[in-house]
């Protein structure tokens, strides 16, 4: 027995070694470079919020829907050029005929598009999507934008379909109860991607008005062929697509929820063409910019229409006083926060709107954008009279719980403490923070938040985020709970304008509210930073979607 035991140890070691050798040779086999008709990308630490077109409301899901959709109107991209921000007809033959003093829009749907299963795309498919979006049980977020459509509210209350939207032949008619200058950009949102009256949306003679997580036929250059929640999405080329949009790869494989290190390594060794969630290792930005240059091939930085800010709850004792809110703007260390996101990951701002939406009325002088020193801290402390909070109480600071979010919160907490506040740090999961903060009357004093434009117009920010008339019991987006009649009047006036005057009015309103009321402490306008694999080609950045155009992208 002793002898046999002696053998067992070396035999075990041999076995382990053998497996390692075999495994190593298998691994070596996969390191050969190959020309691929598959585009392999990843999204680190995240998944799409939904793949159901009626519910999808995130940058990543919209980036995917841009490939699967033929919207009535949208943003044009032909021949590998980046999309511009003007809404143009895509599924429609041309701009709509507007009648009835701006209350009726008639679209003619182009013929020639087909779903991935061969079914031709008609006007009826748009109506199906609209009716499904408005259904009582689906509860699509787009309903918050579409109350002006005749019959929409009735549909959300249980009526069968939106009465104000009708189909006749290849014409789609939308009736509004009042003119809406932003209907066109709203229709460009992927909520209005056409769907088929077939599974998985229409099963056993009835519409499925609850979330659909399975693949579905789509009319765009690609369709979703496989979906594993939390793990991946696979897009395949639509064999029946005959439109002008490019579709270089025949399969697009998107791995979700990879680790940051795994994604970064994967890009560096060519497994992943890119990370759709941005450079997964932002601490490398500086090194990458030095090694590859910026916007030259492997490392790209684009600005997007986004503002990250601190919302200060104006209904709470701490931030009722405008001087305390202004003091936070003085004490805030914007450069440090931006550094945490990586080199050149954003530019500091003290305004609500990103610069392109302000019509040129943009300044970084309203409040200091450099890092504070002892002098600024003491002036902030004086201005706020020691944070205005009674001794012993805490500011409840809600923030994210990812590693960079915690670092950001550490910097902000430090600034608040130097100002004389005492801070209670409350880490929360990303989306949950908005939901909870959106309930009126919680203990949230101050929270980090961000807003990306739904469509490129100042109204999307000003009305949704700062209009006091939108405040309800819960699910608010006006996280500062800011309510000011003068502001509302100015807002309505600006909304009635159009063109350059409109943009300028937004910029002026922005500076007015920040100078006089400072309901926010804006931090930065973030940039999208992309790090590409050595074998990635065809990189095109779509501005309105703030993301890589997957149809142009390929690996070789």
């Amino acid at each position, binding site marked *: 027995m002793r002898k046999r035991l002696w053998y067992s140890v070396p035999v075990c070691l041999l076995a382990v070694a053998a497996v390692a050798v075999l495994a190593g040779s298998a691994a070596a086999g996969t390191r050969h470079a190959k020309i691929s008709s598959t585009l392999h990308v990843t999204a680190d630490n995240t998944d799409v919020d939904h793949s159901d077109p009626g519910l999808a409301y995130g940058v990543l899901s919209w980036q995917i829907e841009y490939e699967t959709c033929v919207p009535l109107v949208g943003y044009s991209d032909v021949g590998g050029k980046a999309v511009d921000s003007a809404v143009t007809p895509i599924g429609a033959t041309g701009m709509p005929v507007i009648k009835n003093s701006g209350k009726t829009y008639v679209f003619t749907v182009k013929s020639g598009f087909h779903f991935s299963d061969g079914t031709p795309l008609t006007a009826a498919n748009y109506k199906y999507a609209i009716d499904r979006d408005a259904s009582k049980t689906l509860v699509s977020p787009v309903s918050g934008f579409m109350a002006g459509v005749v019959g929409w509210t009735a549909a959300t209350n249980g009526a069968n379909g939106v009465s104000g939207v009708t189909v006749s032949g290849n014409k789609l008619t939308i009736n509004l109860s009042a003119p809406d200058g932003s209907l066109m950009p709203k229709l460009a949102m992927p909520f209005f991607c056409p769907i088929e009256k077939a599974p998985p949306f229409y099963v056993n003679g009835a519409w499925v008005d609850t979330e659909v997580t399975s693949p579905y036929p789509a009319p765009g250059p690609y369709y979703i062929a496989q979906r594993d929640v939390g793990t991946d999405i696979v897009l395949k080329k639509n064999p029946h697509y005959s439109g002008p949009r490019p579709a270089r790869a025949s399969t697009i494989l998107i791995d979700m929820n990879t680790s*940051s*290190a795994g994604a*970064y390594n994967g890009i560096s060794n060519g497994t992943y063409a890119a990370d759709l969630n941005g450079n997964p*290792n*932002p*601490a*490398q*930005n*500086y*090194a990458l910019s030095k090694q590859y240059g910026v916007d030259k091939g492997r490392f790209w930085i684009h600005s997007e229409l986004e503002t990250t800010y601190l919302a200060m709850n104006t209904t709470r004792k701490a931030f009722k006083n405008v001087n305390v809110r202004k003091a936070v703007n003085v004490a805030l*260390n914007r*450069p*440090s926060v931006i*550094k*945490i*996101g*990586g*080199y050149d*990951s954003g530019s500091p701002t003290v305004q609500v709107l990103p610069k392109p939406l302000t019509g040129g009325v943009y300044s970084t002088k309203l409040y200091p954008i*450099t*890092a*504070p*020193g*002892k002098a*600024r801290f003491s002036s902030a402390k004086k201005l706020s009279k020691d944070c205005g909070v009674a001794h012993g109480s805490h500011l409840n600071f809600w923030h994210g*719980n990812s*590693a*960079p979010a*915690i*670092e950001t*919160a*550490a*910097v902000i*907490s*430090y600034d608040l403490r130097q100002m004389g506040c005492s801070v*209670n*740090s*409350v*880490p929360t999961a990303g989306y949950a923070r908005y939901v909870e903060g959106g309930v009126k009357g919680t203990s949230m004093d101050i929270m980090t938040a961000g807003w990306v434009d739904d469509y490129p117009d100042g109204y999307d920010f000003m009305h949704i985020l700062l209009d006091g008339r939108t405040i309800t019991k819960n699910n608010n987006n006006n996280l500062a709970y800011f309510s000011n009649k003068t502001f509302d009047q100015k807002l309505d006036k600006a909304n009635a304008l159009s063109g350059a005057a409109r943009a300028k009015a937004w910029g002026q309103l922005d500076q007015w509210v920040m100078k006089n009321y400072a309901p926010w402490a804006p931090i930065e306008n973030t940039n999208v930073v992309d790090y590409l694999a050595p074998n990635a080609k065809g990189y095109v950045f779509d501005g309105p979607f703030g993301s890589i155009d997957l149809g142009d992208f390929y690996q070789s």
Partner: protein
Amino acid sequence: MSYQQQGVVEPPVVAPGAPPALEDDILQIEALSYWQSVWRVFKRDKVAIGGGVTIVLLILACFIGGPAFAHALGHGPDELFNDAVNIGGIPVGPWSHVSTAPYPGAPGHFKSVLFPLGADSGVGRDEFLRLLYGGQTSLEIAIFATLISVTFGLLMGATAGYFGGPIDMIISRLTELIMAFPVLLFIIALSAVAGPQLNAITLGFLPNGVFTLTVVLSVFGWFYPARIARAQVLSLREKEFVEAARMVGASDWRIIRSHLLPHLVAPMIVISTLAVGGNVLAEAGLSFLGIGIQDPISSWGTLLEEAPQYYLQDPWLVLWPGLMILITTMSFNLLGDGLRDAFDPRTAN
């Protein structure tokens, strides 16, 4: 074997008036008490002594060295320095001189401070000080949790073992129940649900979040001491001296206190020492997941949580907290093993 045990050999009885020559040749051996004999054995275990000394040094370094170094370096563990994070957002490396200027080019003259181990993360605080102050947090949690769980476990186990019957059944079933849980998953769940409320409890002197982790670790840490205590009490319960005490009329409580508890001290000491090491590991894991300790308090686990972000640029950030945890746990394990050997009569030769 037993003849070799120190203290058992008795001095020879000498009749008065006998010649004294024999006495001079025989070495007078004193009887040793239980604790003295334990100490003798323990003294011989150099490695265990090393572990004990390391623990004392660690405690001194964290609780006294921390404030001392903060005073000497001129800044605290929670102070932010912009210059400690370079332009790429990467914390500076070990032995860096960090300027106190708020930003490069700020008007005025600013002195530099020394960061012995560099900065901790993109926030720009002193890693060395956070390591020492973090040790305070980690050790506090581990020690308090151990004290509570061992005390509670001892009581529960002794009660169950001594009284038997329904009390024993309830307590035994309870320990079996907890062992059926995937404990870590349950700890994560419990912390997430009750975390925010627990984090706010400071009892006046503890940092935020320490109470949460202490409670959570205690709740799941008492069943092992309880099982050992119960087993020990069960075997002692039937011994003659307990029976004798009962016949004399001693109450249950007196029997437990005077006769049973002394025999439990040894195993409980051993368990406690090993449990502290285990709790240090457990706290590190939970803090890594973001449970309990909140900013700006640091612990070895939170330092381990911030470190992997910079694994490409500053890989040593993982090393400092990891090594501290390793050394601490190893020391407690060595100490516990040495104590166990010292208390065990069979290894006393």
